[in-house]
């Protein structure tokens, strides 16, 4: 584990395309980067028993979640030749079609980033205590479970 400090990964509400664009622009001064790989998780309007999901309300055990995000970051830098990595996750209400997870990895060369991004996303899904309440159009709900 390095000395890098634990950052807050959470943002309130959906992650906007403008936010993503600004992140991309910030990396254009890093001239040694040759390849970026971006994962975006988007809330699906799933249909369950004829009811459609209209939003997910995210909560988290934030202190542990940020620590887990940090451990995943450190493990990824250890395993893969990355120039940088950024992770953002929503808290609160995110509507169907909106983005709730943004993972951004960059490297001088492309080969490493595909594997790195998949590693990071799978680790997030498995290890980070984030909870999702799927809210249907009639205001009933069910709890999302990652598969």
């Amino acid at each position, binding site marked *: 584990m390095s000395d890098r400090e634990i950052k807050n990964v959470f943002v309130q509400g959906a992650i906007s395309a403008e936010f993503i664009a600004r992140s991309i622009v910030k990396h254009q001064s890093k001239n040694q980067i040759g390849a970026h790989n971006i994962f975006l*998780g988007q809330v699906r309007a799933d249909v369950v028993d004829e009811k459609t999901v209209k939003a997910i309300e995210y909560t988290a055990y934030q202190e542990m979640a940020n620590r887990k995000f940090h451990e995943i970051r450190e493990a990824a830098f250890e395993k893969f030749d990355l120039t940088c990595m950024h992770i953002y996750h929503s808290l609160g209400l995110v509507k169907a079609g909106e983005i*709730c997870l943004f993972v951004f990895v960059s490297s001088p060369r492309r080969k490493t980033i595909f594997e790195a991004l998949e590693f990071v*996303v799978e680790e997030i899904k498995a290890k980070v205590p*984030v909870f999702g309440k799927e809210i249907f159009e009639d205001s009933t709900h069910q709890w999302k479970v990652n598969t």
Partner: protein
Amino acid sequence: MELKIKYFGLLAEVTGCEEESIFFSGNSISELLETLYTSYSGLKDKDFQVAQNMELVSPEDKITNTNIVLLPPFAGG
């Protein structure tokens, strides 16, 4: 000793609270769970994990912190 128990997501719906203090005289996580099942029988058939010191723990682990957190299945991303 007095423990602070936190419940997230579905589990807070089952217990009707997000956080509570309980007096507990046992040693292990499994003993604590038996105590909680007595108060909230609805917890028994729920799928959840227990965290202590921001790490997941097993039922046989000893209690080493007065803050214990019950976590329903993860749903990040």
